[in-house]
């Protein structure tokens, strides 16, 4: 896989100056990824910061040629995913939540209420109910994601949250394209079944 990444070129020429740009450009994306992996904003902040720190240490040990040839996207997500995995392993929570935890967890996942405001800002005509509905759906989905097995979660988040291609995901996960495709599709299927179950139980609740 070849990448033509201007930032990678800059990292080859002047590591420290270019890394500052990399850190600023990537902090929010790494945070978003880490939040989907850990479910906790504080953990996600730490994980994103640690990802940047590890990335720099690795870059500092690479030759300029190697830096120039880097595909930064899969490479950074690979570091973040490995850190998330180690963290999950050391905390003995794999998957991060069981289905039984869902009720408890739905309070703490999400964006702390900022999302509705942002969407309202972007779209002044957006109906408040619709916004709230979407926010709730996203929070539920984030919680469900945490119930997926680690590999499926990484694949689903990279593919469907971050929008990476399967080639890049394969590189980030260190597995063949076919394997990560199947991780992603099994993950999505599992999410869909879980959402369906919730919808049914909600319908039963209403009918009662």
């Amino acid at each position, binding site marked *: 896989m070849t990448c033509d990444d201007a930032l990678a070129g800059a990292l080859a020429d002047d590591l*420290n100056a270019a*890394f*500052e740009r990399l*850190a*600023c450009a*990537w*902090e*929010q*994306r*790494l*945070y*978003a*990824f880490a*939040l*989907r992996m850990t479910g906790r*904003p504080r953990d*996600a*902040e730490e994980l*994103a*910061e640690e990802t*940047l*720190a590890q990335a*720099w*240490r690795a870059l500092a040990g690479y030759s300029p040629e190697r830096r120039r040839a880097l595909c930064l996207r899969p490479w950074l997500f690979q570091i973040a995913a490995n850190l998330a995995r180690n963290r999950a392993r050391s905390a003995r929570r794999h998957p991060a939540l069981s289905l039984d935890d869902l009720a408890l967890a739905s309070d703490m996942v999400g*964006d702390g209420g*900022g*999302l509705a405001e*942002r969407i309202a800002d972007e779209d002044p005509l957006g109906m408040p109910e619709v916004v709230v509905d*979407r926010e709730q*759906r*996203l929070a539920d*989905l*984030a919680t469900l*994601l945490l119930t997926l097995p680690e590999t499926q979660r990484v694949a*689903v*988040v990279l593919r*469907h*949250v*971050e*929008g990476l291609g399967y080639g890049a995901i394969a590189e980030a996960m260190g597995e063949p394209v076919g394997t990560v495709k199947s991780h992603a599709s099994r993950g*999505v299927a599992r*999410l*869909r079944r879980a*959402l*369906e179950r919730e919808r049914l139980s909600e319908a039963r609740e209403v009918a009662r």
Partner: protein
Amino acid sequence: MNDKQVSTLSSARSLLSDCRGLCEAKTTAPIAENALLRLGLADAYTTIETALGTVYVAWNAHGLSAVTRKPTAGDFEVWAADLLGRKVYARVAAPERLAHAMTAWLAGDRRAALTFDLRGVTPFVREALLKAREIPHGEVRPYSWVAREIGHPRAMRAVGTAMARNPIPLFIPCHRVVRADGHLGAYGMGGPESKRRILSAEGVNVEQVEALASAGVRYVGSDSTSHVYCYPTCHYAQRIGAPHLVTFADEEAAYAAGYRPCNVCRPPAARLAG
């Protein structure tokens, strides 16, 4: 397509578009800043109150990196980025441990856990600055003392330049390095007046230092005890009672009078004693 299939399709679409929505998560935590600070690729800064008023101080994982007076934070950021070759990020205050260490250090506590980042200066400047750091609170030494102590006895001018390049004035006390002729000499952070102000605040009797030097006195000793000669501000010299105080124009005169150099402030030995 039946109704159930349509509903499944639309829920599949909304699942994937909701997934996409999850990447909107944002945080106000300064993640990049913290990572850069941790790696020593950026510095944090704040202001503190000192004998010279409000000064800006910057630090990173290696310790204090830059200190100066500037009219505004913007001026400081430009100056510091140029000096350090890194960005500096504003903080409301220094971390508690650092703040304590800075206060203790400025009050003369040499055991305060304060470190300095001198990666940006040449080895000679670093050596000269670290030597200046050894001059105790409330005392002064001439440029020639620093030059001799770091093994370059003829490099007095270079020592002067090194002091002028001190990125961490006040904390690395280049203000304690003065001219041997009684003039306090130049000072980067506000000129000779500031130098005088800091030294006075540290307890140096500046008038006396100037008076002795302009009377041609370089060293003092006591005729009552061990026949040792010192720089006038040496801790031991300051305890000599007026009736016993003897003064010397140079080390030869002291040697001729039977005196030897103090082991603490280490004035030069006479060439004759060689």
